[in-house]
């Protein structure tokens, strides 16, 4: 889910209370940086530079060090994504059991290259490393859930369910 452009990256008072609660769980408040960035991403849809500066302020960190964290981890999106994010595993077992075909099929069905977002903003389509669901290879992560034993029919059904 992406936020409309131009929205200012600020938490509500309730969210700020949650930030403080998270910071209090750890011996060093900096440890709450990842959960707070996740909260920001869930709220604003992605993590803009403005959001990074804002979060840096909440932690007394230099923005450069927040930027380091955001650019290091693959689950932080630095640009708006589609309403749905599909991540296809391309690691060893999935590769052996047909991931290249799954990728090609999705490219064709979605009309977008790996890494891209469909023009209607519906789906962001990624190719990722092992999701540790090899028993259901070839598989992909669709938003929060794993979908495996993929066939063209299964993929079609999944895509139909994504508004």
């Amino acid at each position, binding site marked *: 889910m992406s936020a409309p452009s131009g929205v200012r990256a600020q938490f509500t008072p309730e969210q700020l209370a949650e930030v403080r609660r998270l910071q209090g769980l750890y011996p060093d408040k900096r440890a709450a940086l*990842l959960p707070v960035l996740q909260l920001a991403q869930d709220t604003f849809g992605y993590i803009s530079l403005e959001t990074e500066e804002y979060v840096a302020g909440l932690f007394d960190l230099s923005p450069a060090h927040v930027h380091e*964290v955001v650019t290091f*981890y693959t689950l*932080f999106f630095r640009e708006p994504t589609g309403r749905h994010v599909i991540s296809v595993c391309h690691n*060893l077992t999935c590769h*052996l059991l047909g991931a290249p075909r799954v990728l090609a099929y999705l490219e064709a069905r979605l009309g977008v290259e790996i890494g891209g977002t469909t023009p209607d903003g519906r789906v962001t389509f990624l190719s990722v490393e092992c999701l540790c669901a090899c*028993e259901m290879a070839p598989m992909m992560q669709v938003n929060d859930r794993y979908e495996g034993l993929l066939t063209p029919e299964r993929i079609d059904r999944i895509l139909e369910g994504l508004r």
Partner: protein
Amino acid sequence: MAELILTRNFHLPESRTLRVYRATGGYEGLRNVLAMPPATIIETVKKSNLRGLGGAGFPTGVKWGFIPKGHASPVYLVINADEGEPGTFKDRYLLERDPHALIEGMIISAYAIGSHLAFVYIRGEYVHPWRVFSAAVQEAYAAGLLGKNILGSGFDLDVVVHRGAGAYICGEETGLISSLEGKKGWPKLKPPFPAIRGAFGAPTIVNNVETICHVPPIIKRGAAWFAGLGTATQGGTRMYSVSGHVARPGVYELPVSVTLRSLIYEHAGGMPKGKRLKAVVPGGSSAAILTADEIDVAMDVDGLKNAGTMAGSAGVIVMDETVSIPEALMVVARFYAHESCGQCTPCREATGWIYKMTRRIVEGKARKDDLDTILDVARRGAGTTICAFYDGAVGPYISYIEKFRDEFEALIPHA
């Protein structure tokens, strides 16, 4: 059929709930355990020959014993649920289907090492497992199994569930600690080791999910029982994740003395579609590959080590005759290049370079010396890095080429 310990509840509906866990004997006797001297618990775990099941295979009781005596600072227990080793999915099953086993294991382990604050680091992609486990933690708190004065024992334990954000290197124990501390997942220099100076500068024990799940049965049924289930140097059962070209991919809990042949053919249903076995990765992608002739080996830590590979995370990837080993190496090399944290020079530079070379091989653009260059670069970097990630990459780099050299050379255009 050997007794199931870790997976005994998996088939039960709502096995993830406190109700079902208790109905099958979970948390029974915990109050008594929390009255035992912590040193006794550590001794029992040592004698059980329980070894780390995340990848390194280090004796768990010995690791716990490294916590300095008489220290002034807090001790932290950190559960490594950043399962990421390709071919491995067992921890996901434990989090989803028996989260209370992990919680009970954490309570006993924390008590043994003197920790009152435990962190469970779950990889960010595991959303459903995170939700299930978090709900179980809530149940435990509500039932007085976590928090202050657990079951009236006087022992306090808080659990913080912490999500990762997508980086395989956060499965390395000090990479995990760095990430837990709110930084990039850069592993830390050792020494000092985490038991001396770990998370937030305090003594820390990092253990895999499955390892900790073994602790309640060990304490309740005894070290000798657990040790007797396995081999001379590793006790108990473990969960083998089997995938690839097998009829029945999935998790198999078996005594660690099981052979790879038995695992593939007896338990996982053998090769589908009548194909022949070509190769097996026995312990996650970082383990050296085994040929079809090398599968009569016991799947315990020392058995596989003596066979020139490793038990690792027990992620077993089965490959049939249709597999192109050079292509498989390219896929694996791509993985290591993408997941290298970049902190130290040999790994950062070599993983990217070697991936480029494996790609050229698969594309038919390799040069005559590329194979020996890959082997040489792999060897030159091994043992020189901050953590064992690069050594994990070296496992496949060297074994795939050495054991299937002909197949690689066939792709190299001759001058």
